[in-house]
Protein backbone atom coordinates (compact mmCIF):
# COMPACT_ATOMS: atom_id res chain seq x y z
CA UNK A 1 0.00 0.00 0.00
CA UNK A 2 1.64 3.26 -1.09
CA UNK A 3 1.43 5.57 1.91
CA UNK A 4 2.31 8.97 0.50
CA UNK A 5 0.52 9.40 -2.78
CA UNK A 6 -2.79 10.97 -3.70
CA UNK A 7 -4.19 10.64 -0.20
CA UNK A 8 -1.73 13.25 0.97
CA UNK A 9 -2.97 16.01 -1.31
CA UNK A 10 -5.02 18.21 0.96
CA UNK A 11 -7.26 20.95 -0.28
CA UNK A 12 -7.11 22.97 2.90
CA UNK A 13 -3.85 24.62 3.92
CA UNK A 14 -1.99 24.38 7.19
CA UNK A 15 -1.66 20.66 7.64
CA UNK A 16 2.09 20.74 8.10
CA UNK A 17 2.00 23.69 10.47
CA UNK A 18 -0.90 22.55 12.64
CA UNK A 19 0.25 18.94 12.75
CA UNK A 20 3.82 19.95 13.51
CA UNK A 21 2.80 22.24 16.35
CA UNK A 22 0.39 19.66 17.75
CA UNK A 23 3.03 16.95 17.87
CA UNK A 24 5.65 19.32 19.24
CA UNK A 25 3.45 20.67 22.04
CA UNK A 26 2.09 17.23 22.88
CA UNK A 27 5.61 15.86 23.15
CA UNK A 28 6.96 18.75 25.18
CA UNK A 29 4.16 18.92 27.74
CA UNK A 30 2.92 15.33 27.95
CA UNK A 31 4.93 12.61 26.20
CA UNK A 32 8.50 13.49 27.17
CA UNK A 33 7.71 14.21 30.84
CA UNK A 34 5.70 11.00 31.13
CA UNK A 35 8.49 9.08 29.43
CA UNK A 36 11.04 10.21 32.05
CA UNK A 37 9.26 8.24 34.72
CA UNK A 38 9.17 5.09 32.56
CA UNK A 39 12.81 5.41 31.46
CA UNK A 40 13.87 6.30 34.99
CA UNK A 41 12.37 3.09 36.28
CA UNK A 42 14.46 1.06 33.80
CA UNK A 43 17.59 2.42 35.41
CA UNK A 44 16.32 1.49 38.81
CA UNK A 45 17.55 -1.59 40.58
CA UNK A 46 15.00 -4.22 39.64
CA UNK A 47 14.90 -5.85 43.04
CA UNK A 48 14.50 -2.54 44.78
CA UNK A 49 11.62 -1.72 42.43
CA UNK A 50 9.81 -4.95 43.19
CA UNK A 51 10.52 -4.67 46.90
CA UNK A 52 9.01 -1.17 46.90
CA UNK A 53 5.82 -1.93 45.04
CA UNK A 54 5.17 -5.19 46.90
CA UNK A 55 5.87 -3.84 50.37
CA UNK A 56 2.81 -4.34 52.59
CA UNK A 57 2.26 -0.64 53.12
CA UNK A 58 2.29 0.15 49.38
CA UNK A 59 0.09 -2.83 48.55
CA UNK A 60 -2.38 -1.71 51.22
CA UNK A 61 -2.49 1.75 49.59
CA UNK A 62 -3.25 0.28 46.14
CA UNK A 63 -5.94 -1.93 47.60
CA UNK A 64 -7.49 1.02 49.42
CA UNK A 65 -7.44 3.31 46.37
CA UNK A 66 -8.99 0.68 44.12
CA UNK A 67 -11.64 -0.54 46.55
CA UNK A 68 -12.83 2.93 47.60
CA UNK A 69 -12.94 4.01 43.94
CA UNK A 70 -15.08 0.97 43.10
CA UNK A 71 -17.53 1.58 45.94
CA UNK A 72 -17.82 5.26 45.03
CA UNK A 73 -18.34 4.42 41.34
CA UNK A 74 -21.13 1.97 42.19
CA UNK A 75 -22.79 4.53 44.43
CA UNK A 76 -22.54 7.02 41.56
CA UNK A 77 -24.03 4.48 39.18
CA UNK A 78 -27.19 4.54 41.28
CA UNK A 79 -27.41 8.22 42.17
CA UNK A 80 -25.98 9.41 38.86
CA UNK A 81 -28.56 7.40 36.96
CA UNK A 82 -31.32 8.57 39.26
CA UNK A 83 -30.29 12.23 38.88
CA UNK A 84 -29.98 11.97 35.09
CA UNK A 85 -33.42 10.36 34.92
CA UNK A 86 -35.15 13.00 37.04
CA UNK A 87 -33.37 15.88 35.32
CA UNK A 88 -34.26 14.67 31.81
CA UNK A 89 -37.72 13.20 32.35
CA UNK A 90 -39.45 15.24 35.02
CA UNK A 91 -40.33 18.91 35.28
CA UNK A 92 -40.10 20.44 38.73
CA UNK A 93 -39.14 23.83 40.17
CA UNK A 94 -35.38 24.23 40.49
CA UNK A 95 -34.62 21.62 37.86
CA UNK A 96 -32.44 23.94 35.81
CA UNK A 97 -30.43 24.98 38.85
CA UNK A 98 -29.81 21.34 39.79
CA UNK A 99 -28.86 20.59 36.21
CA UNK A 100 -26.26 23.35 36.17
CA UNK A 101 -24.96 22.37 39.62
CA UNK A 102 -24.14 18.84 38.42
CA UNK A 103 -20.91 20.42 37.13
CA UNK A 104 -19.92 21.89 40.48
CA UNK A 105 -17.53 19.01 41.31
CA UNK A 106 -15.70 19.79 38.05
CA UNK A 107 -15.45 23.46 38.92
CA UNK A 108 -14.82 23.37 42.66
CA UNK A 109 -11.15 22.94 43.60
CA UNK A 110 -10.64 19.52 45.15
CA UNK A 111 -8.98 20.94 48.24
CA UNK A 112 -12.10 22.98 49.01
CA UNK A 113 -14.27 19.89 48.61
CA UNK A 114 -11.90 18.06 50.94
CA UNK A 115 -12.07 20.55 53.80
CA UNK A 116 -15.86 20.85 53.37
CA UNK A 117 -16.57 17.15 53.69
CA UNK A 118 -14.05 16.75 56.51
CA UNK A 119 -15.85 19.51 58.44
CA UNK A 120 -19.40 18.35 57.57
CA UNK A 121 -18.76 14.80 58.75
CA UNK A 122 -16.53 15.59 61.73
CA UNK A 123 -18.15 14.67 65.08
CA UNK A 124 -19.12 18.32 65.58
CA UNK A 125 -20.09 18.98 61.97
CA UNK A 126 -23.62 19.42 60.58
CA UNK A 127 -23.96 15.81 59.44
CA UNK A 128 -21.31 14.30 61.71
CA UNK A 129 -23.07 15.23 64.95
CA UNK A 130 -26.24 13.46 63.81
CA UNK A 131 -24.19 10.39 62.96
CA UNK A 132 -22.30 10.64 66.25
CA UNK A 133 -25.58 10.13 68.11
CA UNK A 134 -25.89 6.79 66.33
CA UNK A 135 -22.23 6.14 67.12
CA UNK A 136 -21.21 6.28 63.47
CA UNK A 137 -18.06 8.02 62.38
CA UNK A 138 -17.36 8.24 58.67
CA UNK A 139 -14.23 10.40 58.58
CA UNK A 140 -10.71 9.10 59.23
CA UNK A 141 -11.91 5.83 57.73
CA UNK A 142 -12.30 4.37 54.23
CA UNK A 143 -15.93 5.56 54.24
CA UNK A 144 -14.65 9.14 54.34
CA UNK A 145 -12.59 8.50 51.22
CA UNK A 146 -15.69 7.08 49.53
CA UNK A 147 -17.66 10.25 50.36
CA UNK A 148 -15.02 12.43 48.71
CA UNK A 149 -14.82 10.18 45.65
CA UNK A 150 -18.61 10.15 45.22
CA UNK A 151 -18.51 13.92 44.98
CA UNK A 152 -15.61 13.88 42.50
CA UNK A 153 -17.08 11.19 40.22
CA UNK A 154 -20.76 12.16 40.25
CA UNK A 155 -20.77 14.49 37.19
CA UNK A 156 -19.12 11.88 34.95
CA UNK A 157 -22.06 9.49 35.31
CA UNK A 158 -24.79 12.12 34.96
CA UNK A 159 -23.19 13.83 31.98
CA UNK A 160 -22.69 10.60 30.02
CA UNK A 161 -26.24 9.29 30.59
CA UNK A 162 -28.13 12.56 30.08
CA UNK A 163 -27.63 12.99 26.30
CA UNK A 164 -28.45 9.35 25.55
CA UNK A 165 -31.58 9.49 27.67
CA UNK A 166 -32.69 12.75 26.03
CA UNK A 167 -32.19 11.36 22.50
CA UNK A 168 -34.26 8.26 23.19
CA UNK A 169 -37.18 8.00 20.73
CA UNK A 170 -40.56 7.90 22.48
CA UNK A 171 -41.73 5.27 19.97
CA UNK A 172 -39.57 2.63 21.65
CA UNK A 173 -41.47 2.95 24.88
CA UNK A 174 -44.82 3.36 23.16
CA UNK A 175 -44.46 0.14 21.22
CA UNK A 176 -43.43 -1.75 24.33
CA UNK A 177 -46.45 -0.41 26.13
CA UNK A 178 -48.85 -1.11 23.28
CA UNK A 179 -47.64 -4.69 23.31
CA UNK A 180 -48.77 -4.90 26.90
CA UNK A 181 -45.56 -4.30 28.84
CA UNK A 182 -45.90 -2.65 32.23
CA UNK A 183 -43.93 0.51 33.00
CA UNK A 184 -41.41 -1.44 35.06
CA UNK A 185 -41.01 -4.11 32.34
CA UNK A 186 -40.40 -1.39 29.77
CA UNK A 187 -37.74 0.13 31.99
CA UNK A 188 -36.10 -3.15 32.91
CA UNK A 189 -36.19 -4.81 29.48
CA UNK A 190 -36.03 -1.89 27.02
CA UNK A 191 -34.62 1.27 28.60
CA UNK A 192 -31.98 -0.11 30.93
CA UNK A 193 -30.23 -2.29 28.29
CA UNK A 194 -30.25 0.69 25.95
CA UNK A 195 -28.73 3.01 28.55
CA UNK A 196 -26.31 0.46 29.95
CA UNK A 197 -23.28 1.25 27.71
CA UNK A 198 -23.52 4.95 28.64
CA UNK A 199 -23.89 4.04 32.29
CA UNK A 200 -20.81 1.83 32.08
CA UNK A 201 -18.80 4.60 30.41
CA UNK A 202 -19.76 7.04 33.15
CA UNK A 203 -18.99 4.58 35.92
CA UNK A 204 -15.59 3.73 34.41
CA UNK A 205 -14.73 7.44 34.14
CA UNK A 206 -15.78 7.99 37.72
CA UNK A 207 -13.69 5.01 38.84
CA UNK A 208 -10.62 6.09 36.85
CA UNK A 209 -10.80 9.57 38.32
CA UNK A 210 -11.22 8.13 41.81
CA UNK A 211 -8.06 6.01 41.73
CA UNK A 212 -5.79 8.99 41.18
CA UNK A 213 -7.67 11.56 43.27
CA UNK A 214 -5.64 13.28 45.95
CA UNK A 215 -6.80 16.76 46.95
CA UNK A 216 -10.27 16.00 48.24
CA UNK A 217 -9.30 12.73 49.94
CA UNK A 218 -6.36 13.67 52.14
CA UNK A 219 -8.38 16.00 54.37
CA UNK A 220 -11.04 13.46 55.22
CA UNK A 221 -9.10 10.17 55.17
CA UNK A 222 -6.98 10.51 58.29
CA UNK A 223 -4.00 9.20 56.31
CA UNK A 224 -3.02 6.34 58.62
CA UNK A 225 -0.51 3.90 57.10
CA UNK A 226 -2.10 0.52 56.23
CA UNK A 227 -5.59 1.87 57.03
CA UNK A 228 -6.45 5.09 55.24
CA UNK A 229 -3.39 5.93 53.17
CA UNK A 230 -4.27 6.14 49.45
CA UNK A 231 -1.75 5.39 46.68
CA UNK A 232 -1.25 9.01 45.52
CA UNK A 233 -0.49 9.96 49.14
CA UNK A 234 2.03 7.12 49.24
CA UNK A 235 3.86 8.80 46.34
CA UNK A 236 3.75 12.12 48.19
CA UNK A 237 5.14 10.54 51.36
CA UNK A 238 8.07 9.01 49.47
CA UNK A 239 8.76 12.35 47.79
CA UNK A 240 8.81 14.12 51.13
CA UNK A 241 11.50 11.67 52.24
CA UNK A 242 13.45 12.42 49.01
CA UNK A 243 12.99 8.77 48.01
CA UNK A 244 12.64 9.56 44.28
CA UNK A 245 13.10 5.94 43.17
CA UNK A 246 10.43 4.74 45.55
CA UNK A 247 8.02 7.48 44.48
CA UNK A 248 8.58 6.64 40.79
CA UNK A 249 8.05 2.94 41.42
CA UNK A 250 4.73 3.50 43.20
CA UNK A 251 3.71 6.01 40.51
CA UNK A 252 4.58 3.69 37.64
CA UNK A 253 2.31 0.92 38.90
CA UNK A 254 -0.49 3.42 39.52
CA UNK A 255 0.02 4.73 35.96
CA UNK A 256 -0.23 1.21 34.58
CA UNK A 257 -3.51 0.70 36.44
CA UNK A 258 -4.88 4.00 35.09
CA UNK A 259 -3.79 3.24 31.52
CA UNK A 260 -5.39 -0.19 31.57
CA UNK A 261 -8.57 1.56 32.75
CA UNK A 262 -8.22 3.85 29.73
CA UNK A 263 -8.02 0.83 27.44
CA UNK A 264 -11.11 -0.68 29.06
CA UNK A 265 -12.84 2.66 28.60
CA UNK A 266 -11.92 2.76 24.92
CA UNK A 267 -13.44 -0.68 24.48
CA UNK A 268 -16.58 0.34 26.32
CA UNK A 269 -16.95 3.50 24.24
CA UNK A 270 -16.51 1.62 20.97
CA UNK A 271 -19.22 -0.77 22.14
CA UNK A 272 -21.40 2.18 23.13
CA UNK A 273 -21.04 3.80 19.70
CA UNK A 274 -21.84 0.52 17.99
CA UNK A 275 -24.94 -0.11 20.04
CA UNK A 276 -26.34 3.37 19.35
CA UNK A 277 -25.78 3.29 15.63
Amino acid at each position, binding site marked *: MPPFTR*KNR*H*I*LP*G*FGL*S*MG*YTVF*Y*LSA*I*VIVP*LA*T*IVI*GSFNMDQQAFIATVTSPRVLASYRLSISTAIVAALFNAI*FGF*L*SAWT*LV*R*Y*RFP*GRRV*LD*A*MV*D*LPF*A*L*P*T*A*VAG*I*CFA*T*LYSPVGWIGQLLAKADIQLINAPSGIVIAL*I*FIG*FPFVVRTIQPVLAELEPEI*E*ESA*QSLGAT*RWQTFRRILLPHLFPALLTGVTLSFARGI*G*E*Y*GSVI*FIAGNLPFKTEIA*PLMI*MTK*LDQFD*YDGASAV*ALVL*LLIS*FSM*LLVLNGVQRWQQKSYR
Partner: protein
Amino acid sequence: MQHSITRKTGRGTRQSRNDHPAVQALLIVLTILFFAAFIFMPLALVFAEGFRKGVGLYLESIREPFALAAVKLTLITAAIVVPLNAVFGVTAAWAVSKFSFRGKTLLVSLLDLPFAVSPVIAGLIFVLLAGSRTAFGSWLADHGIRIIFSTPGIVIATLFVTFPFVARELIPLMESQGREEEEAAITLGARGWQVFSVITLPNIRWGVMYGMILCMARSIGEFGAVSVVSGHIRGMTNTIPLHVEILYSEYNYAASFAVASILVFLALVTVALKAIVEQRVHIHQRNNPS
Protein backbone atom coordinates in the same frame (compact mmCIF):
# COMPACT_ATOMS: atom_id res chain seq x y z
CA MET B 1 -35.29 27.32 19.08
CA GLN B 2 -39.08 27.52 19.01
CA HIS B 3 -39.19 24.15 17.37
CA SER B 4 -37.16 22.48 20.06
CA ILE B 5 -39.21 23.90 22.91
CA THR B 6 -42.48 22.59 21.56
CA ARG B 7 -40.86 19.28 20.84
CA LYS B 8 -39.51 19.02 24.32
CA THR B 9 -42.79 19.71 26.07
CA GLY B 10 -44.54 17.51 23.59
CA ARG B 11 -42.29 14.67 24.55
CA GLY B 12 -42.71 15.32 28.22
CA THR B 13 -46.46 14.95 28.09
CA ARG B 14 -46.53 11.72 26.10
CA GLN B 15 -48.71 9.22 27.90
CA SER B 16 -46.24 6.37 27.61
CA ARG B 17 -43.54 8.36 29.38
CA ASN B 18 -45.55 9.39 32.39
CA ASP B 19 -44.36 7.57 35.44
CA HIS B 20 -46.82 7.26 38.29
CA PRO B 21 -46.98 10.59 40.17
CA ALA B 22 -45.91 8.88 43.39
CA VAL B 23 -42.85 7.41 41.63
CA GLN B 24 -42.04 10.81 40.18
CA ALA B 25 -42.33 12.51 43.55
CA LEU B 26 -40.18 9.87 45.23
CA LEU B 27 -37.39 10.09 42.63
CA ILE B 28 -37.41 13.88 42.66
CA VAL B 29 -37.18 13.94 46.44
CA LEU B 30 -34.28 11.45 46.38
CA THR B 31 -32.43 13.52 43.78
CA ILE B 32 -32.92 16.71 45.77
CA LEU B 33 -31.72 14.99 48.94
CA PHE B 34 -28.59 13.80 47.17
CA PHE B 35 -27.88 17.28 45.85
CA ALA B 36 -28.52 18.76 49.28
CA ALA B 37 -26.03 16.44 50.96
CA PHE B 38 -23.31 16.45 48.33
CA ILE B 39 -23.57 19.80 46.56
CA PHE B 40 -25.48 22.45 48.51
CA MET B 41 -24.41 21.65 52.07
CA PRO B 42 -20.67 21.92 51.30
CA LEU B 43 -21.32 25.27 49.59
CA ALA B 44 -23.34 26.62 52.50
CA LEU B 45 -20.72 25.35 54.93
CA VAL B 46 -17.91 27.34 53.30
CA PHE B 47 -19.70 30.62 53.90
CA ALA B 48 -20.99 29.63 57.36
CA GLU B 49 -17.48 28.71 58.51
CA GLY B 50 -15.84 31.62 56.72
CA PHE B 51 -18.07 34.14 58.49
CA ARG B 52 -18.18 32.27 61.81
CA LYS B 53 -15.77 34.68 63.50
CA GLY B 54 -17.34 37.74 61.94
CA VAL B 55 -17.12 39.79 58.80
CA GLY B 56 -14.01 41.58 60.08
CA LEU B 57 -11.92 38.45 60.30
CA TYR B 58 -13.31 37.22 56.98
CA LEU B 59 -12.16 40.36 55.19
CA GLU B 60 -8.85 40.32 57.01
CA SER B 61 -8.22 36.71 55.98
CA ILE B 62 -8.69 37.42 52.32
CA ARG B 63 -6.81 40.72 52.41
CA GLU B 64 -3.67 39.68 54.28
CA PRO B 65 -0.47 39.76 52.19
CA PHE B 66 -0.01 35.99 51.92
CA ALA B 67 -3.56 35.52 50.68
CA LEU B 68 -3.13 38.30 48.13
CA ALA B 69 0.16 36.81 46.96
CA ALA B 70 -1.59 33.46 46.50
CA VAL B 71 -4.37 35.10 44.49
CA LYS B 72 -1.80 36.88 42.35
CA LEU B 73 0.20 33.71 41.63
CA THR B 74 -2.96 31.78 40.78
CA LEU B 75 -4.10 34.48 38.36
CA ILE B 76 -0.66 34.70 36.72
CA THR B 77 -0.63 30.92 36.26
CA ALA B 78 -4.10 30.89 34.72
CA ALA B 79 -3.21 33.85 32.48
CA ILE B 80 -0.28 31.89 31.02
CA VAL B 81 -1.87 28.44 30.93
CA VAL B 82 -5.28 29.19 29.43
CA PRO B 83 -4.09 31.01 26.25
CA LEU B 84 -1.33 28.45 25.59
CA ASN B 85 -3.68 25.49 25.87
CA ALA B 86 -6.37 27.32 23.88
CA VAL B 87 -4.00 27.97 20.95
CA PHE B 88 -2.87 24.37 21.12
CA GLY B 89 -6.48 23.13 21.29
CA VAL B 90 -7.48 25.06 18.17
CA THR B 91 -4.38 23.93 16.28
CA ALA B 92 -4.80 20.29 17.25
CA ALA B 93 -8.50 20.34 16.40
CA TRP B 94 -7.72 21.87 13.00
CA ALA B 95 -5.18 19.15 12.23
CA VAL B 96 -7.43 16.34 13.43
CA SER B 97 -10.77 17.47 12.02
CA LYS B 98 -9.82 18.97 8.64
CA PHE B 99 -7.42 16.31 7.39
CA SER B 100 -7.29 12.55 7.22
CA PHE B 101 -4.02 10.90 8.10
CA ARG B 102 -2.72 7.70 9.57
CA GLY B 103 -2.60 7.35 13.30
CA LYS B 104 -5.35 9.87 13.92
CA THR B 105 -7.07 7.65 16.50
CA LEU B 106 -3.79 7.25 18.36
CA LEU B 107 -3.16 10.99 18.33
CA VAL B 108 -6.63 11.72 19.69
CA SER B 109 -6.17 9.18 22.50
CA LEU B 110 -2.78 10.67 23.37
CA LEU B 111 -4.41 14.09 23.72
CA ASP B 112 -6.58 12.70 26.52
CA LEU B 113 -3.65 11.15 28.35
CA PRO B 114 -3.31 13.78 31.12
CA PHE B 115 -6.86 13.01 32.30
CA ALA B 116 -5.80 9.45 33.10
CA VAL B 117 -2.81 10.53 35.15
CA SER B 118 -3.16 11.16 38.87
CA PRO B 119 -2.44 14.82 39.69
CA VAL B 120 0.28 13.75 42.10
CA ILE B 121 2.03 11.86 39.30
CA ALA B 122 1.63 14.91 37.05
CA GLY B 123 3.64 16.87 39.60
CA LEU B 124 6.12 14.06 40.15
CA ILE B 125 7.11 13.75 36.48
CA PHE B 126 8.21 17.39 36.40
CA VAL B 127 10.13 17.03 39.64
CA LEU B 128 11.94 14.06 38.09
CA LEU B 129 12.45 15.78 34.73
CA ALA B 130 13.97 18.91 36.24
CA GLY B 131 15.84 16.98 38.91
CA SER B 132 19.62 16.66 38.86
CA ARG B 133 19.47 13.12 37.48
CA THR B 134 18.34 13.97 33.96
CA ALA B 135 20.39 15.74 31.28
CA PHE B 136 17.72 18.43 31.13
CA GLY B 137 17.93 18.86 34.89
CA SER B 138 21.69 19.29 34.93
CA TRP B 139 21.48 21.74 32.03
CA LEU B 140 18.96 23.78 34.05
CA ALA B 141 21.23 23.67 37.10
CA ASP B 142 24.29 24.76 35.06
CA HIS B 143 22.39 27.76 33.79
CA GLY B 144 20.96 28.61 37.17
CA ILE B 145 17.35 28.13 36.10
CA ARG B 146 14.95 27.04 38.78
CA ILE B 147 11.77 25.25 37.81
CA ILE B 148 10.80 23.21 40.82
CA PHE B 149 9.70 25.13 43.93
CA SER B 150 9.12 28.20 41.77
CA THR B 151 6.55 29.71 39.44
CA PRO B 152 7.66 27.97 36.19
CA GLY B 153 7.14 24.56 37.80
CA ILE B 154 3.64 25.52 38.87
CA VAL B 155 2.86 26.78 35.37
CA ILE B 156 4.18 23.62 33.66
CA ALA B 157 2.37 21.24 36.01
CA THR B 158 -0.85 23.21 35.44
CA LEU B 159 -0.28 23.13 31.66
CA PHE B 160 -0.11 19.36 31.90
CA VAL B 161 -3.30 18.80 33.92
CA THR B 162 -5.38 21.23 31.84
CA PHE B 163 -3.83 20.16 28.53
CA PRO B 164 -6.83 18.32 26.94
CA PHE B 165 -9.73 20.66 27.80
CA VAL B 166 -9.93 22.91 24.71
CA ALA B 167 -8.83 20.26 22.22
CA ARG B 168 -11.31 17.63 23.34
CA GLU B 169 -14.13 20.20 23.27
CA LEU B 170 -13.29 21.35 19.74
CA ILE B 171 -12.49 18.08 17.96
CA PRO B 172 -16.04 16.65 17.96
CA LEU B 173 -17.49 20.10 17.24
CA MET B 174 -15.24 20.74 14.24
CA GLU B 175 -15.64 17.19 12.98
CA SER B 176 -19.41 17.60 12.96
CA GLN B 177 -19.04 20.86 11.03
CA GLY B 178 -17.06 19.18 8.27
CA ARG B 179 -14.74 20.99 5.87
CA GLU B 180 -17.07 21.98 3.02
CA GLU B 181 -17.30 25.65 4.01
CA GLU B 182 -13.53 26.01 4.24
CA GLU B 183 -12.99 24.15 0.98
CA ALA B 184 -15.51 26.36 -0.80
CA ALA B 185 -13.68 29.44 0.46
CA ILE B 186 -10.34 28.10 -0.79
CA THR B 187 -11.86 27.34 -4.18
CA LEU B 188 -13.09 30.93 -4.33
CA GLY B 189 -9.56 32.13 -3.76
CA ALA B 190 -9.39 32.86 -0.05
CA ARG B 191 -6.06 32.55 1.69
CA GLY B 192 -5.41 30.13 4.54
CA TRP B 193 -5.50 32.69 7.30
CA GLN B 194 -8.63 34.35 5.85
CA VAL B 195 -10.42 31.00 5.77
CA PHE B 196 -9.59 30.40 9.40
CA SER B 197 -10.52 33.83 10.72
CA VAL B 198 -13.62 34.42 8.58
CA ILE B 199 -15.10 30.91 8.35
CA THR B 200 -13.72 28.61 11.02
CA LEU B 201 -13.28 30.89 14.00
CA PRO B 202 -16.87 32.26 14.05
CA ASN B 203 -18.14 28.68 13.83
CA ILE B 204 -16.15 27.45 16.79
CA ARG B 205 -15.96 30.52 19.01
CA TRP B 206 -18.42 29.22 21.61
CA GLY B 207 -16.70 25.87 21.68
CA VAL B 208 -13.37 27.61 22.31
CA MET B 209 -14.96 29.65 25.09
CA TYR B 210 -16.41 26.54 26.65
CA GLY B 211 -13.06 24.76 26.65
CA MET B 212 -11.30 27.83 28.03
CA ILE B 213 -13.78 28.10 30.90
CA LEU B 214 -13.11 24.48 31.90
CA CYS B 215 -9.38 24.99 31.49
CA MET B 216 -9.47 28.13 33.61
CA ALA B 217 -11.47 26.51 36.40
CA ARG B 218 -9.07 23.62 36.63
CA SER B 219 -5.97 25.78 36.49
CA ILE B 220 -7.25 27.95 39.34
CA GLY B 221 -8.23 24.97 41.45
CA GLU B 222 -5.49 22.43 40.73
CA PHE B 223 -4.11 21.09 43.98
CA GLY B 224 -2.30 17.74 43.72
CA ALA B 225 0.08 18.51 40.87
CA VAL B 226 0.86 22.02 42.07
CA SER B 227 1.33 20.79 45.60
CA VAL B 228 4.15 18.47 44.47
CA VAL B 229 6.11 21.09 42.53
CA SER B 230 5.47 24.18 44.64
CA GLY B 231 7.40 23.63 47.84
CA HIS B 232 4.73 25.61 49.70
CA ILE B 233 6.73 28.78 50.23
CA ARG B 234 4.34 31.33 51.60
CA GLY B 235 4.03 34.53 49.65
CA MET B 236 6.21 32.97 46.92
CA THR B 237 4.93 29.68 45.54
CA ASN B 238 1.56 29.35 47.21
CA THR B 239 -1.53 29.25 45.03
CA ILE B 240 -5.01 29.82 46.51
CA PRO B 241 -5.79 26.10 47.03
CA LEU B 242 -2.40 25.56 48.70
CA HIS B 243 -3.00 28.56 50.93
CA VAL B 244 -6.35 27.07 51.94
CA GLU B 245 -4.60 23.82 52.85
CA ILE B 246 -1.92 25.51 54.96
CA LEU B 247 -4.46 27.55 56.92
CA TYR B 248 -6.57 24.43 57.46
CA SER B 249 -3.67 22.33 58.67
CA GLU B 250 -2.80 25.13 61.14
CA TYR B 251 -6.34 24.77 62.55
CA ASN B 252 -7.08 28.28 61.34
CA TYR B 253 -10.45 27.12 60.05
CA ALA B 254 -12.22 30.47 59.76
CA ALA B 255 -9.43 31.96 57.62
CA SER B 256 -9.15 28.77 55.60
CA PHE B 257 -12.84 28.78 54.73
CA ALA B 258 -12.77 32.53 54.09
CA VAL B 259 -10.08 32.05 51.44
CA ALA B 260 -11.90 28.95 50.17
CA SER B 261 -15.00 31.08 49.64
CA ILE B 262 -13.11 32.97 46.89
CA LEU B 263 -12.69 29.65 45.12
CA VAL B 264 -16.33 28.72 45.68
CA PHE B 265 -17.38 32.04 44.19
CA LEU B 266 -15.18 31.39 41.14
CA ALA B 267 -16.59 27.86 40.83
CA LEU B 268 -20.16 29.20 40.87
CA VAL B 269 -19.26 31.74 38.18
CA THR B 270 -17.74 28.90 36.16
CA VAL B 271 -20.86 26.76 36.47
CA ALA B 272 -23.07 29.69 35.44
CA LEU B 273 -20.85 30.62 32.47
CA LYS B 274 -20.73 26.99 31.42
CA ALA B 275 -24.51 26.74 31.44
CA ILE B 276 -24.82 29.93 29.35
CA VAL B 277 -22.17 28.94 26.81
CA GLU B 278 -23.58 25.43 26.59
CA GLN B 279 -26.90 26.88 25.52
CA ARG B 280 -25.08 29.02 22.95
CA VAL B 281 -23.27 26.01 21.52
CA HIS B 282 -26.55 24.15 21.15
CA ILE B 283 -28.31 27.06 19.47
CA HIS B 284 -25.33 27.47 17.17
CA GLN B 285 -25.34 23.81 16.23
CA ARG B 286 -29.08 23.92 15.58
CA ASN B 287 -28.81 26.96 13.32
CA ASN B 288 -25.95 25.41 11.38
CA PRO B 289 -26.95 21.81 10.90
CA SER B 290 -24.06 20.00 9.31
